């Protein structure tokens, strides 16, 4: 079926289930993708409720399962959930900071059937890593990455790249080689939630990017067949938007710690939306019928320039959250797109932010992601 004209009658399947088990986290990264108002959500789904989510989603066709958070290791029932995921036939991914991990747990996860572990690093030097994470975590992460490989998991190392660590990209890559990562994600900060708040301190300059990109591509060639390096450029510098979530309500289903079902983990900030909760609605009904998941599915919701654009089936108009944050209207084209009327304003803002010297940038402290700051931002 092509996507000409209107929204597809039958939604595709939720291939990807992201289980955000908790917003609790021992780290405080200032670019965290969790919402700013994490302090508001104290309730977490119980083990049985999560098991029901896993079962229902698998029946709907989900194959990839991400255990995420916050820090999923905070949940003491993680072993139980992993075992259930394996029984159901998921490929399960643990997306973790490594804090709360020890060798016994890594072995127990393997026994339970966990397929893959992704560990995040904040930087390749201890001081910067610990500063950005707001905790003395570097040595433990390093040790845990070794343990993960020892237990024969495929290992992804994820490093969020931004103005304050991008110049160390070569050291970062060397660290991942030393740790024998199978995949490395050098993921430029995306500006949502906490990172939007801190964008002046995080957005790299064009010159920094050009240099980093060259180094990353050089290592991609050098490591071919041994280690796969994904280098994601910050979309603020692009002229076409990312195909965000592969389209709204297309393949991604996020369940937040309190049971809210979201088409992406940043969607909570969109105004006038009410998101269904797995405590009172089935996954099938959420996916197939809820107004939240149908809101931007297909292309009926689009305005110009997206509506008549030949590329709308490729990028789906970009990111709804970014359109809202940068234009005030979630049905606008993502302003990353050169065809958007708001693109020039975004370019001007990027130029303004990156005109500041690193000293000026560092003079304004980053707002760390923690409950205290979350409460203060809400008041």
């Amino acid at each position, binding site marked *: 079926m092509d996507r000409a004209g209107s929204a597809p009658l039958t939604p595709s*399947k939720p*291939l990807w289930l992201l289980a955000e088990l908790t917003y609790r986290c021992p780290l405080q990264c200032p670019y965290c993708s969790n919402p700013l108002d994490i302090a508001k959500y104290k309730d977490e789904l119980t083990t049985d409720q999560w098991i029901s989510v896993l079962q229902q989603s698998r029946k*709907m*066709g989900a*194959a*990839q399962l*991400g255990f995420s958070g916050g820090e999923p290791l905070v949940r003491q029932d993680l072993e139980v959930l992993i075992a259930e995921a394996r029984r159901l*036939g998921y*490929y399960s*991914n643990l997306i973790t900071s490594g804090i709360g991990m020890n060798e016994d747990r890594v072995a127990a996860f393997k026994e339970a059937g966990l*397929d*893959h572990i*992704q560990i995040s690093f904040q930087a390749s030097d201890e001081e910067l890593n610990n500063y950005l994470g707001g905790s003395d975590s570097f040595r433990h992460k390093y040790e845990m990455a070794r343990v993960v490989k020892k237990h*024969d998991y*495929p290992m*992804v190392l994820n490093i969020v790249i931004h103005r304050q660590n991008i110049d160390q990209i070569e050291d970062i890559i060397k660290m991942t080689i030393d740790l024998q990562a*199978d*995949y490395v994600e050098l993921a430029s900060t995306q500006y949502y939630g906490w990172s939007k708040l801190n964008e002046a301190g995080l957005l790299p300059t064009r010159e920094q990017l050009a240099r980093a990109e060259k180094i990353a591509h050089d290592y991609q060639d050098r490591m071919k*067949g041994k280690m796969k390096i994904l280098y994601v450029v910050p979309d603020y510098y692009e002229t076409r938007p990312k195909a965000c979530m592969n389209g709204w309500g297309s393949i991604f289903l996020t369940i937040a710690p309190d049971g809210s079902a979201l088409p992406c983990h940043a969607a909570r900030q969109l105004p006038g939306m009410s998101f269904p909760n797995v405590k009172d609605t089935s996954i099938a009904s959420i996916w197939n019928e809820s107004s939240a998941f149908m809101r931007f599915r297909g292309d009926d919701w689009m305005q110009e320039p997206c509506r008549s654009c030949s590329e709308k089936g490729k990028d789906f108009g970009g990111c709804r959250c970014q359109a809202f944050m940068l234009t005030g209207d979630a049905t606008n084209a993502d302003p990353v797109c050169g065809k958007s009327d708001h693109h020039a304003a975004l370019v001007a803002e990027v130029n303004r932010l990156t005109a500041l010297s690193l000293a000026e940038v560092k003079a304004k402290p980053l707002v760390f992601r923690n409950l205290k700051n979350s409460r203060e931002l809400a008041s």
Partner: protein
Amino acid sequence: MSDSSLSLDTVPRISPMFRFQWEEAQESHVLLYPEGMVKLSGSAGEILGLVDGKTSVAGIIDALKLKFPGAPLDNDVINFLETAYGQGWLRTVNA
């Protein structure tokens, strides 16, 4: 890559980076890997279904010939297995 010199005696196995399984919702065999999935064609699924870390390439071809009599498949199977090695889906079991 040294792994790509494929002979009839080579014994392939699925790389530990991938999990091969039948996926009901896709009505096909798939390879799952960290945060991704490759949906396999019918013939690719048939071939990888015979990769068990014990059977040689010749053995895989023989098994397929039994299942699909008369199909001229030697080269197709070898070509596909070479592609699969190139994609990193397969490793060779050391003799």
